[in-house]
């Protein structure tokens, strides 16, 4: 078993894709790291154990050869923006769009 360091803004699905070529390995990845929580963010300081057989080798190769690291987690800034929807399209009549 080897260990890897997650990059900034990577979540567990990104790592599964990067290392095994599919998110279908995400539960194996979690099991190897003694946790069972796919919603919790992972930390760049925490090494992850990997070393199982890849699910789709061509995809792993694709990421490796181009040195691509998927990172789709939301940054704090993005989360802040997402939490504060307002205006037309986001308001709901009689909920936050009330006419007195």
């Amino acid at each position, binding site marked *: 078993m080897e260990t890897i360091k997650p990059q900034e803004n990577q979540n567990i699905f990104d790592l599964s894709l990067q290392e095994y070529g*599919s998110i*279908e390995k995400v*539960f194996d990845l979690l099991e190897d790291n003694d946790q069972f929580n*796919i919603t919790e963010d992972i930390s760049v300081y925490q090494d992850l154990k990997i070393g199982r057989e890849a699910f789709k080798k061509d995809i792993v190769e694709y990421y490796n050869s181009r040195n691509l690291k998927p990172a789709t987690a939301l940054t704090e800034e993005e989360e802040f923006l997402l939490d504060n929807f307002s205006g037309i399209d986001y308001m709901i009549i009689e909920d936050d769009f009330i006419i007195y």
Partner: protein
Amino acid sequence: MARTIAEIQKEILDEKGKQPSLEKLNNDSKTAIWKLWINIVATAIWVHEKIVEKNAMISRPHTLNWYREQALNFHYGVSLDPDSSNEMSLVWRDGSYQFDTTGLTDSEIEDSKIIKHCAVSEIDLETVLNPDSKPKEILSDYFHNKVGVVFIKVATVKDEKISRIDVPNQLFAFKEYIAKIKDAGNQVYISSDQGDILKLSLNVYVDPLSIYINPKDLEYYQSKISTPDSVLGLIEANESNPKDDLDPSNGSLISDSDVFPVLDAIKDHLKNIEFNGAFVKTYLVDAVQKAQGIKIPILTKVQTDAATNPSDEPNTSPTDVTKIEYFIPRAGYFDLENLEVEVNYIPYTFYRDKQ
């Protein structure tokens, strides 16, 4: 087993093909928006299935086997916390109660597992409410799904001998443990008793060439066989017990006076009955038959009873169960220390008898 994303996706695609109203979705690009949505939905279903699968795996239905496994997994340690009767605290982890064994070595953990034998059965209420009932053929009850009480018989191994767990300390802790992990509302009866008393009487025809019988005792043995039990009782009451005069080496091998083939075969057989296994008369006879120098073993009398406490009056007249072909010892095993075997040795000399 959870399906793969591809399988789920294919099912959605197949279903889509059956719906004429969805024919408009015909963009054959691999990344057409409707195909991407199918992929997203399939992935969501897959994640859900994986989680359900994992949950199902760690929260197993509480069958009798589950109870047995939990009992064998019981760890007993010295109490540290006054509220708990156990050193290793029971913690809720991964959907079930588990013992917190952090900081203990493997051998320490193994040592604390005191329960080595365990039998779990479910008995209907009638049997439970009538504890005085004779040991009867309750085996069939075990296999019928009768609603009642879960019975757990446990035993440990001390000095390579099966024995009950320490009462009351260990038993109390074990009861607490089961009370905590069992399903709410279930009735669980836990017992760990001393081995049942067993008294056997046998007539054994032996080969006089390999097994020693003192010639002066032959008459006594013969009379025991030919006299009916009721008459024998009267004779024994009147006369001084002739049993005491018997040669103690009767039944031993002529070549080695320390080996008693019949007794050894019986002990060996009883030892090899699995925990809470049935005592079967025929099997015992078969086992004796195989011993050296034995021609015809006949089991004439079987008596058994649950063991009494050491402080109580010993039970001198165990229940006669000769007519029952098989039964299960109340404690799950027999007390081999106090096993009583009475053997009448008769030389096998039919070939010289007048026909």
